[in-house]
C-alpha cells in the first residue's frame, strides 16, 4: 500500500509533481502558493524562481513545447502578470504537460485583492480543475497532466488559501509517467500565432474544449462527483466550498465539480432535474450560477454578502438558507507590523522627516503604512510604485511634485521595477524623480525566498547576482547611491533631500539584510 502523509495542499502538489516525473517547476513566490516549489525542490525536483510570473509562464511554455512535463506556480494576482502569454498559449499546442497551479486568496489573508481565477479559465479558454483536499490536490495534478497531454492544452489547477494551508491525509499513489522524452518537433501552424494561423487555432481550441467537456461528462472521468440526498434540495459546488457543504448540509444532494471549466453541462442538467430546488454554493464570484443560467438550469444563487471573504461551515449554512445579512463583526485581529529591528524602519523615518509623498509597492515595506510612520500613500500592484510616482510627478504643481518618492523592494524591483526605471529616464518629469529601493536582500513577505538579486538560486545554492545599482546605472539613471539605512541614516536623508530639492533623477538603494533572513542564513551555514 502506498505511503500516507499528513500534509497541506501545496506539499501534496509537490509530491504529485515528483511522482508524475515533472521535469521543471517554475514560478514566483506569493502567499499562499510559495511552498509548492520549495517542497518540490526539497524532495528532489528541478524548481526555480523566475523574476516574475510572466517569465515563469514563458519558461514553462518553452519546456512544454519541448515535450516536458511542467508546472508553473503563482498566486492569483500573479496570473494578471502572466496573462499575456496565458491567453495566447491557450491557442497553441503543447507537446508536454503544462499545468498552471494558481492559488487564490478569498478573504485576503495576505493579498491586495480577492480576484477569482475561475474567471481566467473562462476568459482564456483554459481547462480548470479544483481540488477540495490535499488528496485531491495530489490526484488532480496527475489528472491535469493527463488532460494536458491528451489534448495538448495548458490546464489550470486552482487552489485556494484553505487548500494550500490545510493539512489533510494524502496517500502517495503511483502516478503515470510520460512515455516520451523531451524533444522538439517543428509545428509552425500550432505554435506561431500570427493572425492567419491564430484564427484557425482559436477554432481548434474551442473544438477541443467541447471534446473535453464531453469527456468530463462521461461516467468514470472523475471530473464530477455526485452524492445523493433528499429530493428537496441539490447543491452544486466546487473546491473547498464542497467540504463545507458536506458538513453544513448533510441531507442535501451534492454535485461537486472537480473540473469547473469547461462546464459539464449535461451532468449539471441531469443533476438539477432530480431536485426540487438547486442551490449554488461557491466562494468568490458567481460563476457556477451564471454557467447554470447559460444552459437554462434554474438555480438559487448566493446573496451578495457571500461575494466577499471566504466561506466556512457557518457562512455556508447561512448561504444555503438565503440569509444575506452581514455576519456579526468579529473582534479585530492584531495587524502585522514591521518587525522590531527591521531595516525598513530607518528608511521610513527618513521619508517621514522629509514629509515625502510615498507611492508604495507590494512587500513587507507596505507595512510602512502603519503607525508610527504612515508613510505609504498608495499601493496598487507589483512594480506600481514607480509608474504611479511618475504620473503624480507629471501632473502635480512643482512644489507638490518635488515631494513624491517611489518606494519598492529588491525582489519587487526584479519582478517589475525595471521598466518603470526605463520610463523615469525616458519620460523624465520636469521636477525629476526619486526611487528608493528598500533592499533587504530577500523576498521577505512571502517567507524568505531567493531572487535574482540575492546571488542564490531557489535551493539557496550560489547563482549569478544581478546588481541593482548596475542595472539602474546601465539604464541611464544619473544619480545612484547606496546606503546602510541603519548606519548611514543621516547621509541617506541628506542625499534624498538633495535629489528632491534639485529636481534630480535618482535611485537610492537602502541596503541592509532582513533580520529574519540573516537568522536563516546563519542557520544554513
Amino acid at each position, binding site marked *: 500500500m502506498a505511503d500516507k502523509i499528513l500534509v497541506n495542499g501545496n506539499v501534496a502538489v509537490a509530491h504529485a509533481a515528483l511522482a508524475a516525473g515533472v521535469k521543471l517547476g517554475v514560478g514566483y513566490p506569493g502567499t499562499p502558493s510559495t511552498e509548492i516549489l520549495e517542497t518540490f525542490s526539497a524532495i528532489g525536483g528541478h524548481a526555480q524562481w523566475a523574476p516574475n510570473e510572466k517569465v515563469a509562464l514563458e519558461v514553462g511554455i518553452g519546456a512544454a513545447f519541448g515535450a516536458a512535463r511542467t508546472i508553473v506556480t503563482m498566486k492569483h494576482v500573479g496570473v494578471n502578470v502572466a496573462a499575456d502569454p496565458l491567453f495566447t498559449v491557450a491557442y497553441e499546442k503543447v507537446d508536454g504537460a503544462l499545468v498552471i497551479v494558481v492559488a487564490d486568496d478569498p478573504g485576503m489573508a495576505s493579498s491586495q485583492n480577492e480576484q477569482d481565477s475561475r474567471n481566467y479559465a473562462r476568459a482564456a479558454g483554459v481547462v480548470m480543475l479544483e481540488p477540495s483536499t490535499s488528496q485531491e490536490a495530489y490526484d488532480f495534478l496527475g489528472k491535469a497532466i493527463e488532460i494536458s497531454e491528451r489534448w495538448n492544452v495548458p490546464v489550470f489547477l486552482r487552489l485556494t488559501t*484553505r487548500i494550500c494551508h*490545510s493539512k489533510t491525509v494524502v496517500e502517495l499513489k503511483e502516478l503515470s509517467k510520460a512515455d516520451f522524452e523531451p524533444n522538439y518537433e517543428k509545428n509552425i501552424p500550432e505554435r506561431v500565432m500570427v493572425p492567419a494561423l491564430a484564427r484557425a487555432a482559436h477554432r481548434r481550441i474551442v473544438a477541443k474544449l467541447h471534446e473535453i467537456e464531453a469527456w468530463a461528462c462521461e461516467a468514470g472521468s472523475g471530473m464530477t462527483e455526485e452524492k445523493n440526498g433528499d429530493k428537496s434540495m441539490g447543491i452544486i459546488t466546487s473546491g473547498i466550498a464542497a467540504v463545507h457543504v458536506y458538513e453544513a448540509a448533510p441531507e442535501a444532494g451534492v454535485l461537486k465539480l472537480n473540473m469547473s471549466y469547461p462546464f459539464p453541462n449535461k451532468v449539471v442538467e441531469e443533476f438539477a432535474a432530480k431536485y426540487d430546488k438547486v442551490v449554488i454554493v461557491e466562494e468568490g464570484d458567481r460563476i457556477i450560477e451564471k454557467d447554470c443560467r447559460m444552459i437554462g438550469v434554474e438555480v438559487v444563487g448566493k446573496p451578495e454578502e457571500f461575494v466577499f471573504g471566504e466561506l*466556512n*461551515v*457557518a457562512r455556508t449554512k447561512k448561504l444555503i438558507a438565503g440569509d444575506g445579512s452581514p455576519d456579526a463583526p468579529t473582534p479585530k485581529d492584531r495587524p*502585522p507590523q514591521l518587525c522590531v529591528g527591521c531595516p525598513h524602519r530607518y528608511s521610513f523615518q527618513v521619508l517621514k522627516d522629509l514629509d515625502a509623498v510615498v507611492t508604495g509597492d507590494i512587500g513587507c515595506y507596505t507595512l510602512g503604512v502603519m503607525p508610527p510612520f504612515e508613510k505609504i500613500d498608495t499601493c496598487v500592484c507589483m512594480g506600481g510604485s514607480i509608474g504611479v510616482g511618475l504620473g503624480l510627478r507629471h501632473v502635480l504643481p512643482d512644489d507638490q511634485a518635488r515631494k513624491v518618492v517611489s518606494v519598492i523592494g529588491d525582489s519587487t524591483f526584479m519582478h517589475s521595477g525595471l521598466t518603470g526605471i526605463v520610463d523615469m529616464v525616458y519620460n523624465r518629469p520636469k521636477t525629476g524623480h526619486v526611487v528608493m529601493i528598500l533592499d533587504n536582500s530577500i523576498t521577505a513577505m512571502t517567507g524568505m525566498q531567493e531572487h535574482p538579486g540575492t546571488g542564490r538560486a531557489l535551493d539557496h545554492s550560489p547563482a549569478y547576482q544581478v546588481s541593482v545599482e548596475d542595472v539602474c546605472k546601465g539604464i541611464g539613471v544619473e544619480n545612484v547611491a547606496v546606503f546602510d539605512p541603519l548606519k548611514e541614516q543621516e547621509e541617506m536623508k541628506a542625499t534624498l533631500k538633495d535629489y528632491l530639492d534639485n529636481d534630480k533623477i535618482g535611485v537610492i538603494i537602502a541596503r541592509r539584510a532582513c533580520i529574519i533572513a540573516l537568522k536563516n542564513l546563519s542557520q544554513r551555514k
Partner: protein
Amino acid sequence: MSKKVTNVVFAGIGGQGVLKASDILADAAFASGIEIKKAEVHGMSQRGGSVSSDVRFGEGVLSPMVPEGKADYLVVLDETQVEPNAGCLAEDGKLITVNHLDVSKLQSPKCVNIALLGVLSNFLDLDVEILKNSVKANLAEKLHEMNMAAFEYGQSIEA
C-alpha cells in the same frame, strides 16, 4: 478512542509557535490513526500579527476549519488573543491560556506553546507518549530536553 470529532483552536501572535503546536497535535492524531484535518492562516503572521490554527480529529471530519462556537478547546498563547478568538469556543468548551502557566517555571518563554500542549493533553483522548514523540519529531534535538520539561510542567497544571 473517541468517535466524536474533537475541535481544537490554537491562537496567538506570529513567532510564538502557534502553528508548531497545532502541527504537533495534528501529527499525534495522525500517528494514532485518527481522521484529522488542520487549517491555518499564514500570510503576514511573521510580522507579529494574529495567528490561529484549527485542528479537528475524530471520525467524519469534513471541513478543515472549526465552525464558530464549536471548539472544544481554545488554546491561547497570548492574552491579547483571547477576546478575538473567544467566539469559536463551544458553550461547554474549555479555554486554556498562558495565564494558566507560571512562565517563570519554563526554561524559555519560547516553550509556552509546548507547556500549553501539556495542559491540553490532560483533557484529550490521545496517548501522551504519542504526543510527546510528536513534540520531539517537530523540534530540533537540542530543544528536546527543554520542551519535554515544559510539556511535563503543563501536564502538572490543573486548568
